[in-house]
């Protein structure tokens, strides 16, 4: 990857549905993915609840975003990370996480990668821009 490709990180710290942040953030990610950018997404604090699989938003009258999360890898957004402590504090395990794509070779489900605070801090330091949602 050439040096002029921008490294852009999205941080998601809000829970889903209570505000429009997670929806708007997802939309921006998909738009940015159409450009030549090195995109990563980090879910932390209540943002990890956006990754809970099995969200049934029908009664809220909204489409939800699990289907879109399911194809993030197809949109070439595969650097999707979850803060381990935020996840554990909120009673979630890796099994709770939505699937974001499928491995082309093995056809195995791809889920977000669980990382710790030090790893996230190191990644943040490498970015050209960080967009909070």
């Amino acid at each position, binding site marked *: 990857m050439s040096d002029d490709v921008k490294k852009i990180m999205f*941080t998601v*710290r809000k829970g889903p549905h209570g505000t429009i942040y997670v929806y708007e953030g997802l939309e921006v990610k998909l738009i940015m993915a159409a450009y030549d950018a090195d995109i990563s997404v980090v879910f*932390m*604090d209540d943002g990890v609840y956006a990754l809970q699989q099995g969200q049934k938003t029908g009664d809220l009258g909204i489409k939800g975003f699990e289907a879109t999360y399911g194809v993030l890898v197809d949109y070439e957004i595969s650097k999707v990370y979850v803060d381990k*402590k935020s996840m554990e504090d909120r009673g979630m395990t890796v099994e709770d996480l939505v699937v974001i794509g499928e491995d082309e070779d093995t056809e195995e489900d791809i889920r977000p990668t669980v990382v710790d*605070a030090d790893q*996230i*801090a*190191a990644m*943040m*330091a490498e*970015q*050209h*821009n*960080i967009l*909070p949602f």
Partner: protein
Amino acid sequence: MLHTVNKSPFQNGALESCLRFINEGDVILLIEDGVFGARTGTAKAALIENVLKTNKVYALSADVQARGITSVIDGIEVTDYAGFVDLVEQHSVHSWL
């Protein structure tokens, strides 16, 4: 990197999250209700006192003054809007909204 915190530490965990993900050499700027974290004698003062051992912390003077805060934790640098602009110019920014 510059981390801005605009929420009161008594309202939510933005400041505490920021402190968990901060790197050596990063700076913190407290703005809006975030400046309540800069006040001396609060139950959350230790958070800032601790991070001051390793990182530089600023508070925005307009927000400090507007909230009648006359005593900020030792080591915090109170800065004006021009200083805010300088910080943004010198660092990449993450806002802990």
